């Protein structure tokens, strides 16, 4: 009976999926972009433009007259707030109105448009647009449309200039050593920041626009000759086939293009810092910069990437390696510590040393709930506190942390609701989850699964869960590159659990970089003290003579 029920459900699901696909393809076909041609009369064009922008009040139309004894009518159309008023005056109004051409040679029609674009307007970016929708989208992007009476075309002059946040230190990825600048919400600022790190002609920037309603600008950045063309094509294809109405953050893009949407592990990386992105570009990855967010996506992403920080490369290799090993331990602890604790205390008491067993047993004495429930509730409470801490305004946050620390840590134990070891385990789990911030989402998911397994079948369950996670990780790919590739090749191992000295990491990561894979000259260790070197040189010269 039950079996049949499940089969019916499965069949229903698979049918449903097909039908959804059909619907979307149909709706795609129905929608056709309408192109409205321009009229000769300027007021007709203006009315039409107004209509296209729903008669919004922030649409400004500034008519002007110019030419010999101002006889020609024109109009500037722009959206208030998106344009820089100084540029508007300097680049369009002043040169056009101040223009004193000869009456006889005065051009008309299309010719006038070209003269204006090429000779008069003081702007570096002037485009001729022949359709009203083109003009409208220009306006919406912050440019100014210039319309002339009697012309069936218009000019789009770049006058973008809205208020934006200045470059500042990112909140999420703070460093002790290394550059402190972070990306901003402005696309061009972000691409410029990457350009400033890699001053090379190979750095290829490709623009795309996604989102029917939001028309979000997206930049694809990669080092041609280093990045794998297949990956570049895949990213381009996956973004290009998107037909969605909005892209508000790079997370939208990430969700649409990732390899494994239902995996707890992210297969697209992100960063808020230009030096991180530049480093990944140099390894042959592709970056996706999305307008309106300081988070830049990078692909393909490997598992090891979550454990690498920029500071690993800025500090000396021994310390960096130690930190990386600690990060691996931290991740292991944050996933498995509660599960192991539950398994030990509820199933495998024989594995605990006798003295420790008595200590734990003493603290468990009189606590009302099973250890699984206790741990689960404490972790749940921690997640609540963390979430509250993020969302609350800063002055209130302190109050929350005090309440959390006192009530959770002290009162719960002294009231006998939870045992002290549980609090310790939860605390170390919570603290360790911040060691690897990129994987903290996968860690909190896996942690719960492992805890449930431990609560049911003890260590057997935990080890089965560990195996399952390992198998899953092994089967994951990111844009065709195996997720565990960081542990696969000797050259990749140099930058995995330990970080070898920079001068010994000669090649870019295998399977990611393609073509120009040599990163450094073969083996350039640091110089020896110069006195020794001089002696060697002298000897060498002596032999030569």
């Amino acid at each position, binding site marked *: 009976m039950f079996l049949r029920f499940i089969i019916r459900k499965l069949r229903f699901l698979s049918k449903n999926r097909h039908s959804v696909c059909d619907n979307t393809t149909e709706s795609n076909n129905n929608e056709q972009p309408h192109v409205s041609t321009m009229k000769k009369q300027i007021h007709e064009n203006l009315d039409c433009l107004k209509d296209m922008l729903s008669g919004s009040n922030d649409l400004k139309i500034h008519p002007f007259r110019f030419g010999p004894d101002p006889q020609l009518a024109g109009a500037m159309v722009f959206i208030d707030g998106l344009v820089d008023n100084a540029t508007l005056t300097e680049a369009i109004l002043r040169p056009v109105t101040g223009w004193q051409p000869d009456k006889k040679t005065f051009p008309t029609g299309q010719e006038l448009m070209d003269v204006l674009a090429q000779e008069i307007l003081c702007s570096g970016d002037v485009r001729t647009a022949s359709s009203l929708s083109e003009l409208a989208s220009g306006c919406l992007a912050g440019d100014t449309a210039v319309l002339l009476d009697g012309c069936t075309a218009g000019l789009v002059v770049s006058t973008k200039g809205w208020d934006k946040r200045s470059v500042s230190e990112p909140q999420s990825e703070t460093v002790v050593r290394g550059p402190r600048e972070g990306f901003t919400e402005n696309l061009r600022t972000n691409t410029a920041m990457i350009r400033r790190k890699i001053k090379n002609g190979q750095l290829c920037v490709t623009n795309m626009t996604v989102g029917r309603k939001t028309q979000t600008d997206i930049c694809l950045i990669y080092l041609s000759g280093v990045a794998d063309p297949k990956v570049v094509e895949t990213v381009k294809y996956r973004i290009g086939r998107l037909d969605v109405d909005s892209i508000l953050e790079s997370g939208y893009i990430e969700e649409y293009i990732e390899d494994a949407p239902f995996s707890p592990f992210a297969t697209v990386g992100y960063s808020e810092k230009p030096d991180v992105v530049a480093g990944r570009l140099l390894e042959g990855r592709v970056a996706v910069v999305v307008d309106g967010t300081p988070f830049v996506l990078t692909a393909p992403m490997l598992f090891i990437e979550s454990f690498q920080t920029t500071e690993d490369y800025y500090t000396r290799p021994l310390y960096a390696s130690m930190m990386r090993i600690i990060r691996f331990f931290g991740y292991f602890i944050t996933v498995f510590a509660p599960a192991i604790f539950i398994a030990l205390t509820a199933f495998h*008491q024989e594995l605990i040393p006798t003295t420790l067993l008595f200590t734990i047993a003493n603290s468990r004495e009189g606590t009302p709930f099973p250890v699984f429930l206790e741990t689960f509730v404490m972790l749940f409470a921690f997640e609540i506190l963390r979430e509250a801490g993020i969302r609350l305004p800063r002055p209130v946050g302190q109050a929350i942390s005090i309440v959390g620390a006192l009530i959770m840590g002290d009162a719960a134990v002294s*009231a006998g609701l939870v045992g002290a070891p549980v609090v310790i385990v939860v605390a170390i789990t919570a603290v360790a989850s911040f060691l690897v911030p990129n994987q903290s989402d996968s860690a909190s998911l896996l942690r719960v699964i492992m805890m449930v397994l431990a609560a049911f079948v003890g260590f057997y369950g935990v080890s089965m869960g560990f195996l399952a996670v390992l198998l899953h990780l092994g089967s994951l790919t990111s844009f065709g590159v195996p997720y565990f590739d960081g542990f696969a090749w000797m050259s990749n191992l140099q930058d995995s659990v330990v970080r070898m000295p920079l001068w010994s990491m000669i090649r870019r990561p295998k399977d990611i970089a393609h073509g120009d894979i040599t990163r450094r000259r073969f083996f350039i260790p640091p110089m020896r003290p110069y006195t020794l070197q001089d002696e060697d040189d002298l000897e060498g010269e002596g032999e030569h003579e």
Partner: protein
Amino acid sequence: MNRRLKLVASVMLLSMLMMLLSGCWDNHELDTLFIVTGIALDKANDSEQLDISLQIGKTKSNVSDSDKSNSQQASTIQLKTTAYTMMEGLMEFNRDSSRTLLLHHNQVLLLGSALAEQGIKDHIDLFLRDHEARMEVLVMIADGRADEVLSAKLDQEKISGVFLAREMQDLYAVSPYYKIRMLDFASRLRDGTTSPIAPIVALKETDKKQEIKFNGFAVFKDGKMIGRLNNDEVLGYVWAMGNVKQCGVVTDSDLGRAVFHIINLDTERDVTLRPDGGVRVTLTVDATLNIGELRGFNGMTPKDLMPYLVDLAQNEIRRKITDTFVTAQTLNADIYGVGTSVYREYPKEWKELKNRWNELFPDTELDVQVKVHIPTTGQIVKSLEMEGSKS
């Protein structure tokens, strides 16, 4: 399609069932367990039966601080019963107690000396068979009633089972042959020629205080306790087995008293068959000693003293080893495993020798060769008395 779906569904169901099948198997919360820290077996009035006594380490909630009387309460629980077999006793305990017994952490199995003399082969089956009762359990013999030793209220440790385990762990650092686990005991029982031994502990009561004293080794043969080694003989046994660290050698002579500290003592055992059919054991003892304390030796210079001391130590070590061997021979108990050594050297002859081992062992010749090095004299060279005589 249908078949594939059916397969997927059945796999899903089966895996779900698998989770439930093993669900919470062996799940015991800590506050539903009695942690057994010691088991004592004694001879009951009815010779068929056993007096079983269990010591349970009491867990105390450290939450209720207001109850000061808590700290004065006993830290152990003693469960007692009389039953035919160990398992029956455990069943009774489990029936009559509020929690499940956890044998994993049992530290010690104490056997009353009366029971040991009667024979213990019948009573330790459970300790070998049950997976919860580990082979690492220490086996000890109590002088008198075992349950009295187990219920001793000690100053050093709250739980006497833990005390015994720690004492043995401490002695293990001196020589691994002090620590007799169930595994060692049972393998000797099975071995046939090698006699099992087990430490003897005795309860001593002075001024309302109870103490547990280490009181030599019990020697078993055919699962019955047939005799004992006193503390001196235990030293002789341990030295004969070798691998000794940090142990004292006490010597007395006409000139003075010297106590040495063993830094390292290794023994090599060599077994040969004598032409007359007997066995000859050669023990080569290689000891590195340190002078621990000197008393007397007036008027001797360090140069004269050192060879004398080496001689003294060698003689003492040889004497103790020989004494113990003689005791073992009079008991006719091969506590050294000489038979096993013979088997290793002469596997073919052993088949025949094995049956005659009871006659051969008392006849075995022992040759002890001791080499003592005293590399240092400690922090001072001469004792104060020696210096005084010089001036």
